[in-house]
């Protein structure tokens, strides 16, 4: 049952040229830019969090190839149904940097994505959104839309009943949905070996009569091509698939976690050698004339983009209390209206 690991770009930055396929230099540079942008955004958020200027953050460091590689093959009318460690994928599809700072900074207005983006809001409970992806795909099938839906979740999600239910439903109804699992090896303190007795996560697909594949999740070429292949198949042939991206959570679970309590630092040093950005940089250097000048110029641009997003996030007025009430129903019922009045009167009277 063990699926072999699909890899195109190895840890030393060597790639199987033929397997790079139709990816142009422009595409590859776009990937590299987005991966760096995601890491810079992430590092800045961690630093803001330490200064008390950001809420609890789930770091995506180490998973940039998985994030960018899964989002780039999607077409505009396709759907991305993420968990919460997917903001690199969101940026790739056009979510703004400052909106994500707002969201992680505790301002819910940051979760309102532009109407033209088919991205569902972050799902914090584990695995529940796989069923939402299934429903979106089911509706697409009923309506005859030629689209596909990609859900992303972590290795912890495979233990949930909803994981089984979603894959089962997708198999039964032959839906255009691809389930991507970012196997970053950890669900807070629980290693993936304790989530399941199977050797791989991809092999679980067999139980649902859908295809399962296992990919080096730190290899952006392999992630891109595998997701593209199964996304196209889902869109054209209504075939579902399970894609396991083998990556690593380099940071703590969130800023509220301390991973030194349950994992040895040596393992991080091992995975640093497999860093997704470093290996792409090596490839670009040897094959596309990338150099330190270009690197510095790009990093300066990306840093400015991130700093501008921070400014935008920090300059926005805090949300009005009304926003707590206004979206619960399409029209506020009497009890919510009364409670909103209560808040307003309290504030008006100088209450804190």
């Amino acid at each position: 049952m063990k699926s072999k690991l699909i890899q195109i770009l190895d840890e030393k930055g060597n790639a199987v040229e033929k397997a790079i396929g139709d990816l142009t230099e422009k595409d590859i540079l776009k990937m590299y830019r987005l991966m760096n942008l995601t890491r810079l955004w992430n590092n800045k958020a961690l630093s803001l969090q330490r200064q008390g200027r950001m809420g609890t953050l789930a770091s995506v460091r180490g998973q940039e190839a998985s994030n960018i590689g899964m989002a780039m093959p999607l077409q505009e009318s396709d759907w991305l149904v993420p968990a919460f460690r997917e903001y690199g994928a969101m940026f790739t599809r056009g979510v703004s940097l400052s909106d994500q700072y707002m969201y992680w900074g505790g301002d819910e207005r940051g979760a309102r994505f532009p109407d033209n983006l088919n991205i569902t809001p972050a799902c914090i409970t584990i695995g529940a959104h796989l069923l939402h992806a299934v429903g979106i795909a089911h509706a697409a099938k009923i309506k005859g839309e030629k689209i596909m839906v990609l859900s992303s979740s972590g290795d912890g999600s495979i233990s949930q009943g909803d994981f089984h239910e979603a894959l089962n439903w997708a198999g039964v109804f032959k839906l255009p949905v691809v389930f991507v699992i970012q196997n970053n090896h950890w669900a807070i303190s629980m290693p993936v070996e304790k989530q399941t007795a199977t050797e791989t996560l991809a092999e679980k697909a067999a139980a649902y009569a859908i295809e399962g594949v296992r990919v080096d999740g730190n290899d952006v070429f392999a992630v891109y091509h595998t997701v593209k292949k199964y996304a196209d198949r889902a869109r054209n042939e209504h075939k579902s698939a399970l894609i396991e991206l083998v990556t690593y959570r380099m940071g703590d679970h969130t800023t509220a976690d301390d991973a030194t309590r349950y994992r040895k630092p040596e393992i991080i040093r091992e995975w640093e050698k497999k860093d997704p950005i470093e290996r792409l940089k090596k490839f670009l250097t040897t094959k596309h004339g990338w150099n330190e000048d270009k690197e510095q110029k790009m990093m300066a641009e990306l840093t400015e983009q991130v700093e501008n997003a921070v400014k935008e996030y920090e300059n926005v007025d805090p949300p009005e209390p009304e926003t707590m009430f206004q979206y619960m129903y399409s029209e506020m019922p009497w009890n919510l209206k009364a409670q909103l009045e209560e808040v307003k009167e309290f504030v008006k009277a100088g209450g804190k």
Partner: protein
Amino acid sequence: MARKTMIKAINEALHQKMNEDKTVVVLGEDVAIDGGVFRATEGLVEKFGEDRVIDTPLAESSIIGASIGMAMNGLKPVAEIQFMGFVFQGFDQIVDHVARMRHRSQGKYNMQMVVRMPYGAGVRALEHHSESTEALFAHTSGLKVVIPSNPVDAKGLLISAIEDPDPVIFLEPKRLYRLTKKELPDELYRTPIGKAEIIKSGKDITVVAYGAMVPIIEEAAEHVGKEGVDAEVIDLRTISPWDMETVSRSVEKTGRLVIVHEAARSFGVGAEIAATIGERNLLHLLAPISRVTGYDIVPPLAKLENVNYPNSEKVVRAIHQTMEF
């Protein structure tokens, strides 16, 4: 117009809405070829096809979770949960996602969907087939909770529920499915959500109930009427958002209130009504607000079912005690 049962009224509402609006789909266990275990969805698959009338795997979380995705992608799902006692396997999807998606997406994704399920005791059923846990849904902001008590309302409320942009938990008193027939208008019509109905106006005491308890309070009101007590009988019809104005105005007039539900008493719908009316109408009240409810226990199986179930005799006693206070 013809005299029809509640189950027939529900079936008719589904037929008419599916016919009128192609985005309405029905999904659930045994809803297609079998027409639903109570036959609520009978004839739909023959008329509208397997794409829109979907026999699903036996998985409540999926039924609700997939409905969420369908609603996000432009359909209006009407999900059936076979019995209320089974909804808890999909409860996370309802409480954590259906109720919150509109807020979570800051208004981008409406959850225009209905989750229908038979609730309540009185049919001598197995465990998990007699639940009345509507308060759990009513406690969850983001949901509307509708409970009809007769065929005419069942049809009109279900049509309103399907058309409502917000998610509606539609609880059907299974004991009343075939108990009585009412003259049912043939056309597609709407009964407003959030509006109670004063079934009988009276000046001495207000008696409030919903769903399967409504015929019981009507019977009790008739009984005390013969003794000279003029009861105002209110069918709440929606418990979230409940029609506080109608109940409050009634209590202003009568000064007395009895609330009846078969659900357990503590932290129930009756507690919420009593607290609100206490806050608003303290000086109108001539007696303590009284509740006639199921006890705070697991719904008993057949042999003791009637002991737990409120009946008109229990309601009459509560009315007497309130009048004599």
